[in-house]
């Protein structure tokens, strides 16, 4: 019993300390979401910058800890303001999804710049505090635990006082409540925006410094996980809800800590994200929202219809398809064909995203999960049950459609950014289940020896064969989807996107149509996953990660929401760009990020416009 109590209290301390750090990240994300209605993918990068600035202060300049905190906060606030000024301010008035892509571009640039400046290797971050452990009523805590807790409480109180008692704080809250009304009352909402970014970035930076000290390491890839956990904490607490974000962070830390204590470290993310989905089902506004908030405008939807799509006459599309089909004959270069094969397979995924996100208005960041389901389903059917590839590929698409829809079903009540984060969590859950369900999936070992795709005994192993196969599948998927979105069904989907409440008032059964949208999307993505898996011949839980999901959404935003040709153009562009930039070696992803940023700057509705 005593040992149980000791374990329990130790795990509680572990959870609270890590939760405190999540809270720091979450508060920044919540502020930015509240004021700017924006999911900020660059937040983790600012967090990483904070860790590096702290590391420079402490190990290069030997500054005292208190000074390091101030320097980190100031530098990160400047970085935050710069992001707002140069990446987001020019996009005010653009469709709300455009800034999201800008933040993805910025995060690529910052991450890559830090790698180039400070090398790719992690650096040791010596803990300046005396490694002393205190016994407080049977619980052991260390100096760094107390520091994190102290900084957390102090920051929370300062932030509370700021929001509650200062004019700037009022302006911030007013802007968060209703931007237009605040503007009419004379609030300089642009200045408020910039201030919000400064505060959020400073908090993120301090979190980075604390994490660096806590784990005694800084490394350039620490950003993505931080963003990811921050999102989860924000959703737990309720989007745009600052006290909720603090509690969400602490709760996430505790859940993870107890989860690890009971099930083991490999279940950390699985456990946390299953709870996240559960919370979303029962309390879609977050655990700590007492009253439902004013309904947010959907992240896609209402504001999307700025500008028409670039007209694409039928002859142009026919010519493009014709060119794609004769290309292997004219340019039989396997390198080029492989790039385009990847583009066709990812183009199918982009089509599926543009269906749910562009047409039906449900921002999805979980498409790689559907690909993984498709790939594993087909692999297992072929290798365990001896099915031929033709059958297993079709079956895999249906399995992906069914499982995928079932997984997303709990999130149907959610809207706007919630559904984006819920689908991100679902993608992660799929990968974690694959990793941990060893009996079925062979866990971390992955599945090797998948036969290449084949059709009626004809094995597609040469580059142009798989090229034609994937191109044909892409054309087929695009054709079916084009028929669907032009049908009454497509109109109903668009009505969901424009205004769910109005659609409901007209008798549209929301769940049924969302099921259809996600079902078709998961079918297409699962088919693409199955073909991709057989092309690779080896798949593991690391083959289809959430970076692929983010890539697919990026393609769709770049090409133009809901625009079928746009999705394919986006897929070709973003598959080709890293290859074209190969000559730039280390600077490749820096330029890639810059390209995303500039293209969306001048073409916020996407290259081919929204449809």
């Amino acid at each position, binding site marked *: 019993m005593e040992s149980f109590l000791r374990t329990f209290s130790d795990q509680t301390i572990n959870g609270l300390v890590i939760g405190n750090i999540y809270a720091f990240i979450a508060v920044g994300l919540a502020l930015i979401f509240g004021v700017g209605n924006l999911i900020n993918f660059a937040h983790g990068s600012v967090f990483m910058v904070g860790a590096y600035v702290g590391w420079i202060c402490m190990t290069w300049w030997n500054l005292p800890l208190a000074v390091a905190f101030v320097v980190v906060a100031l530098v990160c606030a400047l970085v935050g303001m710069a992001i707002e000024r140069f990446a987001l301010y020019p996009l005010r008035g653009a469709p709300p999804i455009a800034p999201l892509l800008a933040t993805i571009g910025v995060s690529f640039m910052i991450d890559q710049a830090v790698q180039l400046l400070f090398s790719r290797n992690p650096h040791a971050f010596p803990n300046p505090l005396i490694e002393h452990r205190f016994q407080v009523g049977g619980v052991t805590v260390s100096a760094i635990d107390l520091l994190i807790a102290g900084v957390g409480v102090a920051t929370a109180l300062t932030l509370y006082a700021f929001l509650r008692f200062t004019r700037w704080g009022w302006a911030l809250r007013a802007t968060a409540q209703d931007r237009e009304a605040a503007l009419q009352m004379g609030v300089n909402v642009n200045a408020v925006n910039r201030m919000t970014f400064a505060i959020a970035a400073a908090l993120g930076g301090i979190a980075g410094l604390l994490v660096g000290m806590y784990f005694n390491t800084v490394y350039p890839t620490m950003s993505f996980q931080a963003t990811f956990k921050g999102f989860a904490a924000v959703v737990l607490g309720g989007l745009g809800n600052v006290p909720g974000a603090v509690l969400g962070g602490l709760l996430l830390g505790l859940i993870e800590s107890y989860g690890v204590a009971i099930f083991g470290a490999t279940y950390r*993310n699985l456990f946390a994200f299953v709870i996240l989905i559960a919370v979303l089902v029962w309390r879609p506004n977050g655990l700590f929202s007492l009253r439902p908030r004013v309904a947010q405008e959907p992240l896609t939807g209402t504001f999307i219809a700025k500008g028409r799509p670039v007209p694409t006459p039928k002859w142009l599309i026919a010519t493009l398809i014709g060119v794609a089909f004769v290309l292997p004959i004219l340019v039989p270069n396997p390198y080029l064909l492989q790039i385009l094969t990847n583009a066709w397979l990812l183009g199918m995924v982009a089509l599926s995203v543009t269906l749910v996100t562009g047409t039906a208005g449900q921002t999805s960041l979980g498409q790689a999960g559907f690909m993984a389901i498709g790939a594993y389903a087909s692999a297992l059917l072929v290798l365990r049950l001896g099915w031929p590839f033709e059958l297993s590929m079709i079956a895999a698409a249906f399995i992906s459609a069914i499982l995928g829809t079932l997984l997303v079903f709990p999130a149907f009540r959610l809207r706007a950014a919630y559904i984006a984060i819920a689908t991100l969590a679902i993608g992660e859950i799929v990968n974690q289940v694959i990793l941990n369900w060893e009996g079925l999936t062979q866990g*971390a070992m*992955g599945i090797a020896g998948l036969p290449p795709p084949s059709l009626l005994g004809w094995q597609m192993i040469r580059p142009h064969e798989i090229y034609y196969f994937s191109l044909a599948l892409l054309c087929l998927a695009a054709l079916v989807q084009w028929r669907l979105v032009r049908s009454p069904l497509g109109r109903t989907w668009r009505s969901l996107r424009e205004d769910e409440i109005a659609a409901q008032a007209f008798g549209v059964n929301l769940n049924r149509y969302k099921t259809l949208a996600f079902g078709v999307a998961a079918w297409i993505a699962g088919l693409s996953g199955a073909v991709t898996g057989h092309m690779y011949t080896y798949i593991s839980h690391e083959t289809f990660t959430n970076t692929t999901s983010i890539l697919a959404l990026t393609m769709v935003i770049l090409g133009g929401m809901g625009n079928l040709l746009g999705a394919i153009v986006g897929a070709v562009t973003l598959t080709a760009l890293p290859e074209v930039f190969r000559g730039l070696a280390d600077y490749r992803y820096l330029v890639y990020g810059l390209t995303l940023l500039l293209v969306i700057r001048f073409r916020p509705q996407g290259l081919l416009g929204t449809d």
Partner: protein
Amino acid sequence: MRAHLQQHRLLIALFILIALMGLAGCALPVQPVGQATGGASADASQNVEPIYIGVSGPLTGPNARYGEQWIKGFDLALEEINGAGGVHGRPLAYIFEDSQSDPKQSVVVAQKFVADPRIIVELGDFASPASMAASPIYQRGGLVQFGFTNSHPDFTKGGGEYTWSNSVTQAQAAPALAEYTVVDLGLDRLAVFYLNTDWGKSTFDLYARRAEELGATIVAAEAYLPEEKDFRSALTRARDANPNGLVLISYQADGALIAQQIKQAGLDVPIVGAGSLQSPDFLKLGGDAVEGVYIQGQFLPTDPRPHVKNVVDRYVAKYNETPDFFAIHAYDTMKLIAQAIELGGPTREGVLKGLYQLKDVPSVIYEKANFDPETRRVVNPQFVNLQVVNGEFVLWDGVKPEKK
């Protein structure tokens, strides 16, 4: 007017896209990275076309640091090879294509190498999903894929006779580590932390089997994800199982983190680690916390035997740092490939023929490497038992740790 403005902006966006692509395109005629290090011999044989080796590996993205180590090892090896006149009178050079160790990119790189007639052999990729997705392309293209970080048991099976590796498999390394832990160090109640990747998982399974055969008990087994940073909860769990030794099947950064957090979790037992921990980074990141850690490695930088010392001395002189396992493996591999080309001739078929003829290849890691032509892997690899003393890896002194 607005429509006009929109068109205008579409043009700007397209212009940016095309301008940037064009800019990059100018830089495209690939600069062979390794050629620059050719040194004196490159001058002497200026008119001779180098022999090209393709390298597919991570230079950006989460695994970029391993690619950075590879380059150091390759460049040192090329300096020696080209300094001595190259191979068949031609300098050796490599073209490193960044794949981020992502299968989407490694298959593209594979097609690129296969289509490039200058490339006669390929090295890499880093992690299994990227490497094994590319294997069939190399096999079909008749280009040898030589993976030197690929311990996945199926790696050399997937690509047929064109897939080779000088990386030890878990089937070789894991039982040896178990013998070090249980027999040599006398630890028998073990808490094992392992990376939940194909490498970590299969190492753990084989390790646990051998350790239990030797009479030890695995009292706690904790799998963790590669991006895990917070081990306090899992360590608390392990502590409650009351082990007398902690075993780390980890990489350098996560291994150092666990070692640092172990004392904070109130667990004070000897730590035994897999060879992957043997790196200056492990010492740098771990600081005092990794003092006394037992490691079973494949080479020791301070090993006085000439086949190790000569190379390490040159490496330190060139880079002013101690080489880690990945850099030395890259060095060994480049030397080995040079010999295979020497034996079989500077063609794709020649490399394959040369690999089958290799015998007693000088190697920092194996001293003399020999391949099993069936599995296309190194036979009878040797291991060395090490310990961290005063912030350095030294040979284990043979004294068993006190049991707590």
